[in-house]
């Protein structure tokens, strides 16, 4: 893949539309949560551990809290953190990749080295260190997710930006009198933008998976504020008696992540004519 030309007539495909649909529903539900559901912390001691029913489609937990309400509210935490992390990670990855490609030399060397450092420190180690010593509030969690995932965008954009910068048309622009800014503005950024959309969805999906894992391990936001990963961990204690407590929040993570990946693949098909390099692929 050397150039991300717009392939005319290509759409994001059925998968892409399904992904977009899933995301619309999930995002709408979480944004509108205060208006369409009750209080996630409200306890009803008369309906402890009830299996899914018409009144409580996802059932209730050991404090009699409605799990559908809690799952929807859990999405607020999970999505806010993931999306914010993905935005920051994409911006960081994009800036470093573009700077490296445009300036070359030591700028490129340093940004490449930073990516190596990220690979050398596994996210889980970073998470344990930062979240146990610094504390697991919103800021540090976002920091861990950004540090753990910016390389995704970086690698996708960098590979492409380097390929573009080595193209003869960029040299032709230099000969035509274009400076760095003109090259970035006229050639590099327009060619990278579609790819950024793809990288962002993958980044968000990865951030969501990481965020829920942190929540599950007890390193994420602390109870009683509901969060998908943390809810699964809480439900695991009752897995023999009330398996739905762990099941539905986990399902929510899977569905959202699937939506992001489907949309990402669809966008990749639309913009680059094939699935873009994914997690870990060079």
């Amino acid at each position, binding site marked *: 893949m050397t150039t991300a030309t717009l392939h005319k007539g290509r759409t994001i495909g059925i998968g892409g539309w399904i992904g977009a649909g899933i995301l619309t529903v999930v995002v709408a539900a979480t944004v509108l949560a205060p208006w369409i559901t009750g209080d996630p912390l409200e306890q009803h001691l008369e309906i402890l551990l009830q299996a899914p029913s018409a009144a409580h489609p996802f059932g209730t937990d050991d404090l009699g809290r409605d799990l559908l309400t809690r799952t929807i509210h859990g999405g607020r935490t999970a999505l806010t953190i993931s999306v914010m992390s993905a935005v920051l990670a994409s911006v960081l990855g994009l800036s470093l990749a573009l700077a490296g490609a445009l300036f070359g030399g030591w700028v490129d060397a340093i940004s490449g080295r930073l990516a190596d450092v990220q690979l050398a420190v*596994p996210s889980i180690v970073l998470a344990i260190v930062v979240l146990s*010593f610094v504390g697991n509030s919103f800021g540090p969690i976002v920091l861990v997710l950004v540090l753990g995932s910016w390389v995704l965008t970086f690698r996708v954009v960098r590979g492409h930006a380097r390929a573009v910068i080595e193209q003869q048309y960029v040299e032709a622009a230099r000969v035509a009198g274009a400076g760095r800014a003109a090259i970035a503005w006229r050639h590099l950024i327009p060619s990278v933008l579609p790819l950024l959309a793809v990288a962002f969805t993958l980044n968000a999906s990865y951030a969501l998976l990481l965020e829920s894992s942190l929540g*599950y391990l007890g*390193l994420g936001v602390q109870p009683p504020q509901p969060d998908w990963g943390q809810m*699964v961990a809480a439900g*695991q204690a009752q897995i023999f008696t009330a398996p739905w407590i762990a099941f539905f929040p986990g399902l929510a993570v899977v569905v959202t*992540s699937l939506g992001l990946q489907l949309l990402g693949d669809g966008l990749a098909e639309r913009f680059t004519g094939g699935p873009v390099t994914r997690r*870990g*692929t060079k």
Partner: protein
Amino acid sequence: MASVLSPPLPRTFRLPVSGRYLGGRLLTGLVAVWGAITLVFFALYSTGNPALLLVPPDAPPDEVERLTRVLGFDRPIPEQYVTFLGTVLTGRFPDSIRYGENPLPIALEKVPASLALGATGLLIGTLLGGLIGYWSATARSSWLRRGPLGVAVAFESVPTFFIGILLVLVFAVNLGWFPATNGRGLPGLVLPAVTLALAFIPAIARVFRTALLDVLQAEHIRTARAKGLPHHLLVRRHVVANALGTTLNVVGIQAGVMLGGAVVTESVFGWPGIGQLSINAVQNRDYPLVIVCVLVIAAGFVLINLLVDVLAALVEPRLRS
């Protein structure tokens, strides 16, 4: 590799991988370990007085003061840093709060269990992932090309802990075949190992597929076809062998993600390994133990990467020179 000429070249003992390459990788690894140590140091320092974290919460103030002095937390930062490096090198860490003894042996004791789980999971995952990738690139039946890969890729959207939960729901809760948590021995190993395998089958399948497709396009495959090699030899010697190098490299890059998966898996199943120990240590606020766990994990990670690099160089001569 035996040359067809006899005698081929004066036979001298040669390392399969050049010392220069190995040395370079080892150096990178040491830098990574040093980075992890430094990260821990600064995280510790950023909390204010680290001594407060290293003693039990109910410790009297003079105990805190004693430790502050002994560990040098009242000294300037560079000096503290050197002291900390010394602590790590000599292995004399402050006592674990929970166990009341040096945390290093406690952590090392858990390593074999983690290795057993990791090796089993890696074996299952590599075999299955490789097979799925191979089918998806070469199978004639379009069902075999798309089906298994599609399923594998869908698993990329399932967080590792939830894979574990689902397996527990089906095989422990409903079928009762395997223990749900705290299992020992072979039956206890099955679900965690499968969870770990499922966590990286998609990546391996996808990367191997891409590598195979790349090689199948290469011009030297046409040359090999022109030689009239039997199909199985062509595939084994020229296609699969040439795809291994790229695949291993990507597996190396993925190692960090897999490590995360391993820690999560141990937590889900209460597997008595270093991952579960470290998470418990965090939850118990046993900071001396957390530090040791992190360093042991980081060192293990470096060793895994080194191993992958050596393997990649073995199958890919261009990396060696």
